């Protein structure tokens, strides 16, 4: 089963952490990635640029709207993701718990819709 782990956190809080502490967290991410690769569970993953660099696109009635965003009132922003291949949700959640941001932010675990499996069912 494929799962995406979406990593949310308060960007202001992240920016406030000193550089040494950030390095430690990056190192933790690096180790986790190595483990997932070794276990054949890692498909993809990346950190994202700050949400202040995002653009939102909406098309309504054939009219395109490109706007700045997301809006400031959301407390946590999507900051990165892992795409993994594991046997069950239990395994995915176990991996999510190892993401360092789980201690300060939120990691959302979502199963991907598997069209191939649906076709066989």
């Amino acid at each position, binding site marked *: 089963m494929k799962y995406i782990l979406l990593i949310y956190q308060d960007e202001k809080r992240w920016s406030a952490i000193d550089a040494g502490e950030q390095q430690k967290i990056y190192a933790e991410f690096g180790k986790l990635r190595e483990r997932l690769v070794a276990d054949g569970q890692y498909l993809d993953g990346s950190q994202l640029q700050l949400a202040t660099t995002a*653009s939102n696109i909406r098309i309504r009635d054939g009219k395109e709207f490109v*706007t700045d965003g997301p809006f400031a009132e959301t407390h946590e922003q999507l900051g990165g993701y892992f795409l993994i291949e594991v046997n069950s949700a239990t395994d995915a959640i176990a991996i999510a718990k190892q993401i360092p941001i789980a201690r300060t932010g939120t990691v959302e675990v979502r199963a991907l819709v598997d069209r191939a499996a649906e076709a066989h069912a």
Partner: protein
Amino acid sequence: MADAGQTLDRVFRDEYGRIIATLIRIGGSFDLAEEALQEAFASAAKHWKEDGPPQNPGAWLTTVGHRKLLDAIRREKTRTEKEPELQYEAERLQDSGETTLIDETAVYSDDRLCLVFTCCHPSLSREAQVALTLRTLGGLTTGEIARAFIMPEPTMAQRLVRAKSKIRLARIPYEVPALELLGERLVAVQAVLYLIFNEGYAATTGDNLVRTDLSAEAIRLTRVLCELMPHEPENFGLLALMLLQDSRRAARVNDRGELMILEEQDRSTWDHNKIEEGIRLVERVLGRGFVGNYQIQAAIAAVHAEARTAAETDWPQIVALYQELKRINGSPIVALNHAVAVAMSGDITCGLALIDKANAARRLEHYYLYHASRADLLRRLDRKREAMTAYQRAIALATNQVEQQYLRRRLLEVTETLQ
């Protein structure tokens, strides 16, 4: 020999946008370009004082700015290459192609069009677009922009930093958009310039009705846009509209600082040079087929400008122009203006009915001019009590103190005739 300081000031106003645009193209960084140009100006202040200004000051500054930029890029590369996570930033800095210094006599390409489209890119917020356009294309300092928008300087600085970092990190391109997108992107550029003009013409906050600098800056930048895109009639429509509105600047406020509406203005104080230029532009672009929003608004302003007294205003023609504008612009504000023109052409009852119709969807409920216009027509129809209520609504909604004063003056007049 021209005075070095004066030359420097003039060159700064006229050439800043052009030079910064070139330096941004060469270096791929807004910040490094700004720093390099600042250093170049500092160097000019020193050298021109000693040796007198050079033959071609703009080219001199571009060349020196270019040299400073290359130095900065080298420094920056050394710094970023040491830190792995900054390495892609180093890739962004382009110094391969143009390391050789272009000599002072060379003709630099005009990159301002790329700059204006980048500053007004739709993924930047409108506030960021305005600030960035004034900062880079207009060469205004952060402090000047902050004062113009009555905002603390650190807040404005933060806004600019965010906008520039978004351009860098989200890779907003430095280019003139492709033809199929050009129309809609140009509309955004025009909207930014008109917003700057209006902020200067009818300041939305504070007790100063008019902030001249911003309007003058908007006119200057719109002239640049006309020069860069001479085949877009709407650019000229926008320029004409600004000039015609601006021609009435001195007449808008009397010597007691009170707002004078068009009808009450002393027309001898209108700026006839601006009127002439505006009318000439309107006549030129209206013959070109495509008729846009700004062109019609400019044509309306031209009709007003041509009337020697308020009574001589050709209202039927203004009604016809508003009808045309209503066809291409569904804004309730246009419908409101059309209604007022109908009333002015003599049919007050019909005008009032059209005003109410303009607000049928309640979209003008919080717009003070809706209530002010209604109040005015009710007063003329001698429906004084309703007029008073409408004036009170308008006063509550107006944010500009000068406009509030005007409305209070009117309210007082109605109240007095009632007793």
